[in-house]
């Protein structure tokens, strides 16, 4: 019973780490620019498809395909940010919604055009298959790999945000944009770099998620509510907030599906909406 519970929690943590990896970039860009970006999932999907393409068409190994997914989504993010997103930073939230819904539909249509409407699958290398015994339960090697991978990325991110000059610039720009510009920080440039990094991380998340979240052209719409809720519940602009929120979503959603399958994702959504009402500015966010 306990072993089973631990197993469910570990599955939830694996799911949560993917959600965090995809959402963290959205948190930074939403915090920096207050941009209502509904198309963030498209960057994760792009990474997922790039991973599938790199393995199937180019014959690369899984571990080589992951950085390619990262780079691909990052380049895509830079191009779109420079060409399009930038023009709408000062527009109303509604115009941003119109734009990002358009981008969402475009990405879904392009996915059908290039890869067909079906779900994609990849073959994991042998060393990522199988189960390992842990805490009296079985954890799949791939889930353990995902958790450790995201843990390393998260620690790296925490280091960058906390101790590097670039991280200081990001924090300053999120906290007070006007003051940041005043002391000579090029917020535009910070935004581009943050967008690039966030898109890249989403791409890796999408690539890892082919196994655990599935990949088909409806991906960005299917998980839209997850990504946005994690960011808004966590507190846009923060780094720790989305981590907590992703853990709550991942574990509660997995446990809910396991212990109360009749309710489906209800438990998770109820909890999220409740959290949003108790903390209207996010778990670690502040009123603006």
């Amino acid at each position, binding site marked *: 019973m306990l072993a089973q519970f631990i197993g469910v929690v570990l599955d939830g943590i694996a799911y949560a780490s993917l959600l965090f990896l995809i959402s963290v970039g959205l948190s930074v860009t*939403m915090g920096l620019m*207050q941009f*209502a970006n*509904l198309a963030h999932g498209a960057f994760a999907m792009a990474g997922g498809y790039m991973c599938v393409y790199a393995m199937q068409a180019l014959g690369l190994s899984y571990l080589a395909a992951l950085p390619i997914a990262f780079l691909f989504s990052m380049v895509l993010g830079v191009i779109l940010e420079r060409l*399009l997103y930038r*023009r*709408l930073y000062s*527009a*109303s*939230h*509604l*115009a*941003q*919604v*119109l*734009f990002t*819904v*358009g*981008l*969402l*539909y*475009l*990405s*879904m*249509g*392009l996915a*059908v*055009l290039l890869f067909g409407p079906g779900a994609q699958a990849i073959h994991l290398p042998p060393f990522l298959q199988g189960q390992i015994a842990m805490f009296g339960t079985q954890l799949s090697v791939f889930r353990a790999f995902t958790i450790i991978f995201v843990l390393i990325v998260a620690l790296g991110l925490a280091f960058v945000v906390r101790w590097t000059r670039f991280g200081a610039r990001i924090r300053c720009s999120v906290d007070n944009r006007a003051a940041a510009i005043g002391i000579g920080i090029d917020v535009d440039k910070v935004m581009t770099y943050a967008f690039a990094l966030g898109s890249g991380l989403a791409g890796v998340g999408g690539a890892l998620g082919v196994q655990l979240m599935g990949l088909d052209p409806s991906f960005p*719409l299917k998980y*839209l*509510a997850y990504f*946005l*809720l994690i960011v*808004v519940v966590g507190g*846009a602009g923060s780094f720790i907030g989305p981590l907590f929120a992703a853990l709550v979503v991942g574990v509660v959603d997995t446990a809910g599906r396991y212990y109360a399958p*009749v309710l*489906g*994702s*209800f438990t998770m*959504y*109820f909890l*999220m*909406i409740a959290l*949003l*009402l108790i903390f*209207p*500015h996010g778990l670690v966010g502040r009123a*603006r």
Partner: protein
Amino acid sequence: MKAALIVAGWIAAPVLYMALFPDSLVLASQILLMGLFALSLDLLVGYAGVASLGHAVFFGIGAYGAGLLAANGWGEPLSALVLTMLVAAIFALPVGLLVVRGGSLGRLMITLGIATLVSEAANRASGITGGADGLQGMDVWPLLGLFSYDLQGRTGFVYAWIVLTLGFLAVRSIVASPFGLSLQAIRENPVRAAALGTPVRARLTFAFVLSAALAGAAGAVMAQTTQVVALNSLGVHLSADVLVMLLIGGVGRLYGGLIGAAIFMVVHHWLSDLDPVYWQIWIGLILIGAALAAPDGILGAIEKLRSRKQVAW
């Protein structure tokens, strides 16, 4: 004079349309009802300033309400319409109380979360809603006991037009009323409106309820005229679509929703005929172009052009 012209236009347009295009009345009635749906959202987004990504919940409640009544022996359309509007309004009250608490982005997220929740619920409760197969066995009685639904969709078209006209008149008088003016004051500056003594949350919640009832009416008539209700009538996809329709037309101008719905539906219909697989790409490109070229919608762009001309003269 101008008012008389507008009234004449509202009466003449459907008659002309029926005479000129008797074969495309079914699509036209759907456009009218989506227009009513977008108009209901305009009351909320354009006048009260509350953006919603979950408005299809109330459209869906209307559609399933009317559908379930008709499938269970209550096929009288008008009483069913009134009843489902009431149900949508009652459901909207607690939702509205929750939604108006959030900030601008928070509202988008709460409504999105509730929309996802409700469509999941409808999918699970397949015993009642028919799940992914849609609702079966609707039997809608003739309108007023006289006009049954013909294959050409004449009755449906006139029915939709009358409901749209009534809805339009209702929204028009709501936004011109003191209540409507207080909504616009809240939209412009909630802090100042509160300082003037406006009960901000109560007013916004009431606007939410009114808007939901109207969305429910659109859903109910859609179900009654097409005799089909499926899960997509309350999903996130439809919520995003109706917001997009309103934004294409232009928010806060009453006609924006109608124009946007007409353009979106015609383009959608035309593109999915032309290119059944890849129409999403084209819709996406059109929306991106619209957001960049006319962020205030078509009506907003026209206003801008006009004011520019006046300056030039």
